[in-house]
C-alpha cells in the first residue's frame, strides 16, 4: 500500500487471562477501500474490531487511524479520532427505550448537540437511504424484524456521514434475500459516502459482495490476504477449507 493507511493495526498483541488472542497482528486498509476480515470462531476477529473501535486497548503494538496512534493518544485526541466512525453491530444494538428516529439521531442529539427537530429530519433522511419509510420513525426497535433492525443500525451508522464504517457480522441471522439487501445497501452507502469500510463476517457470499480486499485470520494473525477473485485460487489449505465449508482440514 502506498500513502497513509486509513486504519492500521501494527504489531498488535492482545491477551485475555494469559491466552493470546491477537499475536503480532499486522493489517491495514487504504482510504476508500473495503476490507473484510474473515476467520473461524475464536480466531480474534471480534477483538480486532473492538480494538479498532477503541473499546479495547492493545497490550502491545499500535492502532492508527489516519496515521495517528489512538492507543497512546490523549483522551481528547482519541475522542476526535473515534468521532468520525460509524458502526453496524452484529445484533444492531439498538436502544430499546428509544424510538427508531431517536436511535438513528442518537449521536446527533447527544454528542453533536443538533436540535431535536433538525436531528429527526436527518434521521428520516438516513432511514430513506436504507430504504425504510418515514412512518417507521416513531416505532420502537422491538416491533421491527431482524432485517429492519439491521437497516436502522445502518442508518444510525451513516447518519453522521463518517469516513470510516465498521460492520460486525452484518448478515448474521438473516435470510438470504434480506442478507442480499443488506449487502447491497452496504456497498451503496460505502460508495456514496466515499468512506473506508472494515467488515467482519463468516458469510463468504457477503464477503465477495462487499470486499475490495479480504484478510483471513487464524490464531490471532493474518494468514492470507487478497482480493475476492483471488480467494478461489489460493492454495492455502485453511482458506480453502473455510471457503468450501468442509469439516475436514487444518481448521
Amino acid at each position, binding site marked *: 500500500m502506498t500513502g497513509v493507511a486509513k486504519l492500521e493495526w501494527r504489531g498488535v498483541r492482545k491477551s485475555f487471562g494469559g491466552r493470546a488472542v491477537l499475536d503480532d497482528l499486522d493489517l491495514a486498509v487504504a482510504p476508500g477501500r473495503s476490507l473484510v476480515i474473515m476467520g473461524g470462531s475464536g480466531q480474534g476477529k471480534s477483538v480486532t474490531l*473492538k480494538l479498532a*473501535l*477503541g*473499546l479495547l486497548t492493545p497490550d502491545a503494538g499500535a492502532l492508527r487511524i489516519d496515521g495517528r496512534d489512538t492507543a497512546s493518544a490523549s483522551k481528547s485526541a482519541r*475522542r476526535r479520532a*473515534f*468521532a468520525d*466512525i*460509524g*458502526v453496524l*453491530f*452484529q*445484533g444492531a*444494538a*439498538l*436502544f*430499546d427505550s428509544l424510538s427508531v428516529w431517536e436511535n438513528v439521531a*442518537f*449521536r446527533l442529539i*447527544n*454528542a*453533536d448537540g443538533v436540535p431535536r427537530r433538525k436531528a429527526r429530519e436527518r434521521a428520516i433522511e438516513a432511514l430513506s437511504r436504507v430504504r425504510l419509510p418515514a412512518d417507521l420513525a416513531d416505532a420502537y426497535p422491538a416491533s421491527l424484524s431482524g432485517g429492519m433492525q439491521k437497516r436502522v443500525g445502518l442508518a*444510525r451508522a451513516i447518519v453522521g456521514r463518517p469516513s470510516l464504517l465498521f460492520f460486525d457480522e452484518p448478515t448474521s441471522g438473516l435470510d438470504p434475500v434480506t442478507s442480499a439487501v443488506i449487502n447491497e445497501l452496504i456497498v451503496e452507502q460505502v460508495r456514496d459516502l466515499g468512506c473506508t469500510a472494515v467488515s467482519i463476517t463468516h458469510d463468504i457470499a457477503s464477503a465477495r459482495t462487499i470486499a475490495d480486499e479480504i484478510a483471513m485470520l487464524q490464531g490471532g494473525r493474518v494468514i492470507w490476504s487478497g482480493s475476492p477473485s483471488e480467494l478461489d485460487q489460493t492454495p492455502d489449505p485453511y482458506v480453502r477449507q473455510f471457503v468450501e465449508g468442509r469439516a475436514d482440514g487444518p481448521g
Partner: protein
Amino acid sequence: MTAASASLAALTPFRLIGHPILLGVRRVGAITLFGLRSLAATLTPPLYLGQLWRQFLAIGFFSLPVTGLTAVFTGAALALNIFSGGGRLNAEQVMPQIVALGITRELGPVLAGLMLAGRVAAAIAAEIGAMRTTEQIDAMVTLSTDPYRYLIAPRLIAAVLALPLLTAVADLIGIAGGWLVAVRTLGFNPVLYVRNTDAFLQAGDIGSGLVKASVFGFVVALMGCYHGYHAAGGARGVGRATTHAVVSASILILACDYLLTAVFARA
C-alpha cells in the same frame, strides 16, 4: 510427595483464606473506582436532563405506592408493638413520640431504602446489564456518548434526590399509620396524638433520616449501575447482576445506617 508439593500443601489453608480476601479487596477497589468515576460524571457537564427526569420518575414517583404501603403497615405495627410493650412499664402514653422517632430516624429511611434496593437496584442492574450483553453500551461509546454520563450519572442523581422525598412521604404515612391504629383501636385522642408528636419531634430527627436516605439512594443506584455495567454471560449474567445488586445494596444500606446513626448520635 516432593518437598515442593509438601510446602504447597502446607500453604493451602492460607490460600483458602487469602483468595476470597484478595477477591473481596479487588471488588471493593473496583466499586470505589467505579463510584469515583460516576461521581465525576455527575459533577461535570454534560448533564442529560431528559434522562434525569425519566429516572426521577422511574425511581421516585413510581416507587411511591410500594414505599407508602410499607410505611403505613410498619407505622401501624410499630404503634401496636410499642403500646403493648410500653404497657409493661406503664409507658403507653409515650407511644406517639416513639412511633414518630422510630419512623423518622430509622424505619422511614431504612425501609424506603430497602424497598428501593428491591425495586430500583434490580431494575437498574437488569436494564444496564441487558444493554451491556447486547452491545448497546459499546454502541453508545462508538456514538461518542459516555455511558457514565448518559446512563449512570442520571440514575445516581435521581436516586440521591428521590429517596429523601420518598422518605419524607414514608415518614408522614408511617406516622399516619400509627395514628390510625392508636385512634381506632387503642383509644387515643386524635388531636392529642398529633400535638404530642409535633411537640416531640425535632428538626434533627427528620433531617438525620433524610440525610440517611440520600446516602441510601446513592448506594442503591451505585450497586444497580455497577453490577449491571459489569454483567457478562447473557441472560444468566444479567440475572446474577440483578441478584448481586439487590443483596449488596441491602447490606450496604444496613451497614451505612449503623455508621450514620453512630455519627448522628455523637453530633
